[in-house]
């Protein structure tokens, strides 16, 4: 009896926590459709007024494009550097292993405010603030640990006899990597890339330091839109941003399903051969 009571209380608490985690994310969507400039809930009248404003104001489009460019470039660099480092971590031998690993994981621990200030001071003299290169350099630091962690996890489960077979049949190490290893760890690489992309796309703290009239990413533009007073256009941007993330996940799910279908096809034809 007591136990049932305790379980019920536990489930109730978990439901409240779930609501607390989910509600703030979901509430922006209906509010962005409100026609009034005070963002009432529930909206008295539905309208696309704030989305229209996004289209009318070219500075939103500019910052969205800047963000997209930075996120794509830094995710690409993160994937290359992070995958190489993961290969070294899982298979390699190198001195000062603990210290090196600590450096590689440090971006996960150092508060972003400190990173922002440090790179701002360093980049000012180099003229790298308000440039795509500056943003990409910093966001790569922040995203690369996620690639490394994901790919390391994937690499551990790769059967190395497949690689040896490929080498025995005459393929070089580079060709073996691209034709055997990479396809095997591709899901982990893609997951790492997604992490790195979203880290950059959402990143606001270091971006505040690096942004200026010449270049402003979208989160910084949103930040200035809510810092002083609530700009309803930010609700529209937030909803669109959610849409991007949700569709990315759906896309990932679809890719996974298609891969599974192809795999099943492949195994079927192989069996037919026998």
């Amino acid at each position, binding site marked *: 009896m007591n136990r049932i009571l305790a*379980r019920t209380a*536990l489930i109730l*608490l978990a439901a409240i*926590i*779930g609501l607390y*985690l989910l*509600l*703030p*994310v979901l*509430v*922006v969507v209906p509010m962005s459709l409100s026609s009034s400039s005070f963002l009432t*809930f529930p909206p008295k009248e539905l309208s696309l007024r704030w989305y229209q404003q996004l289209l009318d104001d070219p500075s939103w489009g500019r910052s969205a494009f800047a963000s997209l460019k930075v996120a794509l470039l830094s995710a690409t660099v993160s994937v290359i*550097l992070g995958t*190489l*480092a993961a290969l*070294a971590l899982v*298979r*390699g*031998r*190198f*001195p000062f292993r603990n210290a090196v*690993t600590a450096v*590689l*994981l*440090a971006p996960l*621990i*150092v*508060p*972003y*405010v*400190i*990173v922002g*200030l440090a*790179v701002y*001071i*360093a*980049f000012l003299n180099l003229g790298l603030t308000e440039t795509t290169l500056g943003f990409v350099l910093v966001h*790569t*630091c922040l995203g*690369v640990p*996620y690639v490394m*962690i*994901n790919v390391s*996890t994937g690499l551990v489960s790769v059967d190395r006899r497949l690689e040896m077979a490929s080498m025995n049949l005459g393929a070089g190490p580079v060709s073996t990597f691209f034709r055997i290893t990479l396809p095997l760890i591709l899901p982990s690489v893609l*997951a790492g890339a997604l992490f790195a992309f*979203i880290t950059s*796309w*959402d990143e*606001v*703290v270091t971006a505040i330091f690096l942004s200026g009239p010449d270049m402003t990413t979208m*989160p910084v533009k*949103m*930040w200035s839109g*809510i*810092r002083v007073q*609530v700009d309803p256009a930010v609700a529209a941007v*937030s909803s669109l*941003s*959610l849409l991007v993330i949700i569709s990315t*996940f759906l896309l990932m799910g679809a890719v996974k399903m298609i891969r599974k279908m192809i795999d099943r096809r492949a195994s079927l034809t192989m069996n037919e051969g026998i």
Partner: protein
Amino acid sequence: MSVAAGTRAALRQPAPPSFASKIKNFLRIDGWGALVLPLLVFLILVFILPLFVMLQKSFTDPTFGWQNYTAIFAQSVYVKVLGNTFLTAAIVTAVTLLLAFPYAYLMTLATPKWRTVMLVLVLVPFWTSILVRSFALVLLLRDTGVLNSLAQDAGLIAEPVTIIRTMSGVVIGMVQVALPFAVLPIYATMRTIDRRLLQAAEGLGDRPSGAFLRIFVPLSLPGVAAAILLTFVQALGYYITPALLGGPKNTMIGELIVQQVSTVLRFGFAAALATMLLVTTFLLIGLASKYFDLQKHLMGQS
């Protein structure tokens, strides 16, 4: 003759490794290991070096010496910000733990399907921008916000309850951000606990609550300790959430750093504040990594 025999004996006996060869062996790096170098060099140049430039700035800007550090403690405004930073981080950690522990416990009891749902829910904050969530909380909690107007319409409250620009606003916002970092390590530890131990304790006559407190809670402590550390360290450095949901009285060190750079251009002073925060972070992490494998918890996050 005897010399030759001696030589032969020496050849048979492997010579003790010389100091030089020991170092050579230690510094050995193979083809796979060399692949770490591009990222290592990149991070040293782009990440570590700027931190040292910042450290140097804190001692040299505007003049050489400790004056930036003494300035922090000379004015009560700044000391208050430091105190408030630690207080807020402590409250956030306590509240997060209070919510994360039962949540993680329920995850161990739930069916696989519900466990996945609970896991996805806890990861939602992970995937959505901190800015969007903090902004949404402002919309929900402000005086004219969703919750206040719903409660007023329902006749629960006569006047709107002010939450935004108070400590409770900051805590509500920050706990939401911190929850995944607490739930995941606690759940990871709880999952490994053998529930038959609880049955054994009950079989030996303990009450269910007694068995839970004496067996389950102590066994879950490593995960709880990791959760406390990760939450506290993270909370010290938050900027967006306290700046948006807190008032002038709730200023934390992150906001002060940005303020000092963007409004009064005191680079050296901001660098000193950041250095203090960085050293505190490293000390806490270093202290904690003595007691549990932090790398595992960081690596296990994804």
